[in-house]
């Protein structure tokens, strides 16, 4: 399988805590992207980090990328109950066409 792996598969935290999700991939990439999916809905793009970038921020989101380890992490700070969702990473291969997703992390934020 060319799918990446995400870790943990499930994460349960209290409101106000930080949530960290990790992602590994297998190929050389052009960029790596994180998405969010609420139950029963389509995926929504959160943030994209290019292969020559090491860290990127967007609001309460912080993404890091380590191309030497073929891994990325997503940090959500000061989590809210509304952050409860599944989070997926996706890598865009260097060739540019294929967009491959990981298996996702189910985040539950308890009020």
């Amino acid at each position, binding site marked *: 399988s060319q*799918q990446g792996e995400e870790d943990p598969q499930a994460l349960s935290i209290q409101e106000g805590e930080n949530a960290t999700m990790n992602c590994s991939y297998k190929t050389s990439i052009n*960029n790596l992207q994180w998405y969010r999916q609420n139950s029963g*809905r*389509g995926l929504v793009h959160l943030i994209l980090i290019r292969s020559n970038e090491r860290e990127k921020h967007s609001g309460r989101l912080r993404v890091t990328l380590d191309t030497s380890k073929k891994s990325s992490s997503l940090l959500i700070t000061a989590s809210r109950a509304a952050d409860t969702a599944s989070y997926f990473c*996706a890598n865009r291969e260097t060739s540019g066409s294929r*967009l491959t997703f990981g*298996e996702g992390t189910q985040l539950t934020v308890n009020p």
Partner: protein
Amino acid sequence: DAGITQSPRHKVTETGTPVTLRCHQTENHRYMYWYRQDPGHGLRLIHYSYGVKDTDKGEVSDGYSVSRSKTEDFLLTLESATSSQTSVYFCAISESSKTEAFFGQGTRLTVV
């Protein structure tokens, strides 16, 4: 929201019948993708397209074919539906290899 529409949204079909799912976009994006989502597997790529009549296989392409005769439409066909193809199917579009993807709302397919 990006202009991407999947049809039908729900379908129940019998084993052995052909089924076609449609993805329509109004964004003129170059790339289009079909994924299936099953519990424990995340999203798995079935087929993708990088231009009109330019398509390639993903990791779970067996039993599926696609066609893209116009920029705006990407069709996924299950040639002879099987119960293992019961799933939620998502279409996605992307303007370029450097940009994010936008997803449709999904099609829930049940093969009985």
